[in-house]
């Protein structure tokens, strides 16, 4: 897995270097102008954050059943990346929304669910850091419950909003925007995979080091 890191990093790097050109070439959106282009840095992290959260939940569930260490390392890496990508999305989002629609934040279903996911995985990191021994198992439980609650958050805010609907809504994209968006998405995805391999390798080496340390004591 560690061998994949350099090619992934290379591919991601290439995409990020060339992305500005492609984004600049993308058509201007009629009402928002240049500001809209932050969208290419907002939506991929936002989508990947949610996917990463689900991935972490599933891997954590598998860890609780099988107790294989590699699943624990992967879950930890996925949680960190969820928080990282979530932070990017939660910063770029309000910046765009402020310019585009005049509000920093809105309690609609998608935003609320994303914020909650981010908070749950920050709690995951706090638990792993400060929970003491055995916190891998506890964190796995949290990730599983966090993943399970996300559809309920979405549904509950949706239901709330049927009574008090919001005035602004994220627009659907015309075709011209699709290519730069998926280009940027691929870049972020490759970066996610690169960082994941790096992080899991780090944990694997940490575990190997612990093992050597223990064996040297024999």
């Amino acid at each position, binding site marked *: 897995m560690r061998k994949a890191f350099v090619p992934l990093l290379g591919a991601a790097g290439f995409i990020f270097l060339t992305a500005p050109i492609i984004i600049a070439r993308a058509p201007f959106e009629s009402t928002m102008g240049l500001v809209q282009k932050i969208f290419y840095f907002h939506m991929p992290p936002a989508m990947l954050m949610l996917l990463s959260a689900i991935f972490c939940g599933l891997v954590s569930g598998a860890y609780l059943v099988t*107790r294989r260490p590699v699943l624990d390392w992967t879950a930890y890496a996925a949680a960190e990346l969820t928080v990282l990508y979530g932070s990017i999305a939660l910063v770029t989002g309000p910046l765009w929304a402020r310019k585009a629609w005049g509000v920093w934040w809105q309690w609609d279903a998608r935003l609320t669910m994303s914020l909650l996911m981010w908070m749950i995985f920050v709690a995951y990191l706090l638990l792993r850091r400060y929970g003491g021994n055995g916190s891998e198992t506890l964190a796995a439980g949290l990730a599983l419950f966090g993943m399970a609650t996300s559809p309920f958050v979405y549904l509950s805010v949706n239901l709330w909003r049927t009574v008090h609907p919001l005035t602004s809504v994220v627009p659907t994209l015309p075709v011209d925007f699709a290519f730069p968006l998926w280009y940027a998405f691929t870049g972020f995805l490759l970066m996610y995979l690169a960082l994941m391999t790096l992080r899991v390798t780090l944990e694997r080496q940490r575990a190997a080091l*612990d093992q050597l340390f*223990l064996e040297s*004591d*024999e």
Partner: protein
Amino acid sequence: MTFDFHELSIRDLSRNFGRRRALSHVSLDCNAGEIVGLLGPNGAGKSTLLAIVSTLAAPSSGNVFYGRQTATQIGAMLRSKIGVLSHDLHLYSDLTARENLIFFGRLYGVPDAESRASAALDRSLLAERGGDLVSGFSRGMRQRLALERALLHEPRLLLLDEPFTGLDDASTVSLIERLKELRSAGCIILLATHDLDTAEEVLDKAIVLRDGRFVGSEADVRGLRKRYQDRLRAAAATT
């Protein structure tokens, strides 16, 4: 269908917390009708070993066989055959002595919890204090009560962590007699202790742990204290 076993086999048991070794490749065999000692300084891994054998903790590697099967193979039924006297005593201070015994008796599905509780109170010389809250008991009294609690369901395997702590001479003698009775009845008894003089009187064999590692076994427990201290000094000298 009840489950029972007559041997306890600990095979290559290890437990690590990151870099901290709690147990390292410990193996031990115990048979019914034996009292086996776990000796070693603080932090040697005795409590961890007992936690794994009692099914509260899982090992990092290695296995514990109850008869021929592991805990996962046997299931929850295994715990009806294990009695634990832990360092923390596991007694509810807000309940009376009798209530504690009846609660645990019922929890373990003991058929006549009330009468067994009364018998247990008599045996531990706590009959007059049966209706008093445990919060008012001394350490020694709680220890005696906790031992009765561990034995209410007539377990096959008895695990004791520092059982002689806080006991006066009379209680110590009575505990030793009790353990010998249980041994004759075919119990497997695993006992972790510091109190080597007392241990000499009751152990059949012992293993010595240090830093989670097995450093020696004692098939003959006479003169235990001196040999044990010599062994520890030797181990300290080589590190």
